[in-house]
């Protein structure tokens, strides 16, 4: 355990670096309305965040991250482009591993800039790399943009694409859906029986808020799905190849260009990936050594939807990520109620920086 004083000094050093880059300092409340976070992240957040109640305001959460309050701050201020920094504690339950701290400091850097997204991606990555310069860390990167483009380009119905996109963050469910849509797994017996009926709603007495009309709509969707041809096995193989990519960035770019020949739908995303590598290179990053993982970050919280990255200790395997970040346009779309602001950001845990520095 490193001292709080050292951690705070490190946090100030990192924040000063971010402010020198033009970031405005923002502060957010520690108690956040639980409803917004639950609606965004779902029940899983309840397993990770401390929830408390107040007789008037209802359920509140001890801030599990800064992203949501900072996005809300930005939505109100309306500046464009905008850069923010913040530092403070976040709170996470650690029921399964008591050795992990349940409160720790994060220092963040967030860029809201719709005009040059690729440059913004590179800017955030580069400043985090700069803040961690000289420490024994390695970076890993990924890109949801490629996988989502591949799903959108599949030769199948919009309903199937939407179902797959919805479960991008849940690899097991995603795979199960792919198997069914590919005709590799059987239609559940109950569904076959339902679709065989002339009038499945004949004896149905629907109670509750989900209406009979909604049940009928879903039956119609199931009928349509039953008529949809299986997704071509070659397309599925290509999707699987995309998520299994694990190489340095230049090699991945080569692979992606090969895949794009048969899967033109990812071409734009591949171009963006290549432009990002150029931008990273210009920002002084050695992209030849930079690792890429097709599956990177797929089990973390939802809403990262483009470039993603993390920095990890090279010497201590069990240490959590020293820094993590990525693009979260989708989150601003949900919080902005239709208004989307392209955004990318990252956080560093100064306490881990101090621990690594003590070792180096």
């Amino acid at each position: 355990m490193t001292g709080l004083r050292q951690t705070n000094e490190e946090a100030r050093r990192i924040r000063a670096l971010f402010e020198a880059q033009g970031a405005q300092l923002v502060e957010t409340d520690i108690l956040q309305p639980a409803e917004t976070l639950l609606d965004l992240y779902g029940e899983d957040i309840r397993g990770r965040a401390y929830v408390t109640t107040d007789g008037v305001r209802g359920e509140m959460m001890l801030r599990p991250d800064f992203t949501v309050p900072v996005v809300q701050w930005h939505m109100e201020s309306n500046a464009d482009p905008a850069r923010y920094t913040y530092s403070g504690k976040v709170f996470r339950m650690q029921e399964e591993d008591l050795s992990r701290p349940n409160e720790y400091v994060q220092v963040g850097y967030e860029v809201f800039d719709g005009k040059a997204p690729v440059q913004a991606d590179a800017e955030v990555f580069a400043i985090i790399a700069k803040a961690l310069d000289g420490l024994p860390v390695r970076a890993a990167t990924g890109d949801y943009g490629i996988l989502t483009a591949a799903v959108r380009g599949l030769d199948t119905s919009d309903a199937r694409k939407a179902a797959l996109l919805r479960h991008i963050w849940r690899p097991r469910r995603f795979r199960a859906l792919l198997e069914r849509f590919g005709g590799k797994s059987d239609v559940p017996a109950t569904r076959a029986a339902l679709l065989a009926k002339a009038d499945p709603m004949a004896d149905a007495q629907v109670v509750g808020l989900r209406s009979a009309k909604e049940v009928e709509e879903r039956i119609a969707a199931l009928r349509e799905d039953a008529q949809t041809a299986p997704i071509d096995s070659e397309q599925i193989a290509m999707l699987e190849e995309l998520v299994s990519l694990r190489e340095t960035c230049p090699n991945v770019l080569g692979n992606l260009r090969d895949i794009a020949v048969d899967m033109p739908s990812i071409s734009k995303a591949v171009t963006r990936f290549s432009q990002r590598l150029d931008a990273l290179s210009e920002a002084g990053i050695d992209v030849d050594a930079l690792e890429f993982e097709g599956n990177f970050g797929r089990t973390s919280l939802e809403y990262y939807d483009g470039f993603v990255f993390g920095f990890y200790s090279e010497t201590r395997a069990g240490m959590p990520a020293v820094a993590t970040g990525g693009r979260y346009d989708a989150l601003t779309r949900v919080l902005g109620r239709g208004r989307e602001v392209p955004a990318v950001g990252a956080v560093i845990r100064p306490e881990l920086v101090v621990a690594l520095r003590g070792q180096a």
Partner: protein
Amino acid sequence: MTVKLGVPSKGRLMEKTFEWFADRGLKLVKTGSEREYSGAVEGIDGIELVLLSAGEIPRELSAGRIHLGVTGSDLVREKVPDWENRIRELAPMGFGGADLIIAVPNGWVDVDTLDDLDAAAAQFRRNHGFRLRIATKYHRLVREFLRDNGVADYQLVDSQGATEGTVRNETAEAVADITSTGETLRANGLKILDDALIHASQATLFKSRNADWSNEDRNVLNQLEDLLRI
């Protein structure tokens, strides 16, 4: 030191627990007045009987304030995070059986599996602007089960009783509850999903890993295990 054995303090669960031990030659007795929650174990030395609410026994086991305890296997899993590192199952007792399941309205003819539930939740959220509500008091078990099975777009709403009525009252769209015969569910127009047995629960004798186990206590436990043939 004595080994503290926590058992349910009232109702059928208490009676069946007393019977189960009696069948194996150990007599559990309440001491003092009928209202007093203390007792003794006859037929073995070194065990103290502690009568507790079944719902509190998991917490006491986890904290190590009792060495042994009888309670529902569902309650231990629900109330104790990472329970397997804190508590060990010594013997399932063969009574108090009930299944924790997910049930939806009969009229949802399109929903029989978790896959269907997930799709219905997506549709519901799109149409109604909030996540599909599942009423339950088993928050941890249900959340972990749905996460492992990749069900999204739902929320849990707390229901400590009369859970089956929440759908008709439109405070929830589905329920996750414990049932032994399914009778109450059927009476409320609900059906059980085919692949959503979250946990098959029964009364179980548990051992605390966190309690102080002196050598003497361990000897008592060995004797007890011999007597109970477990």
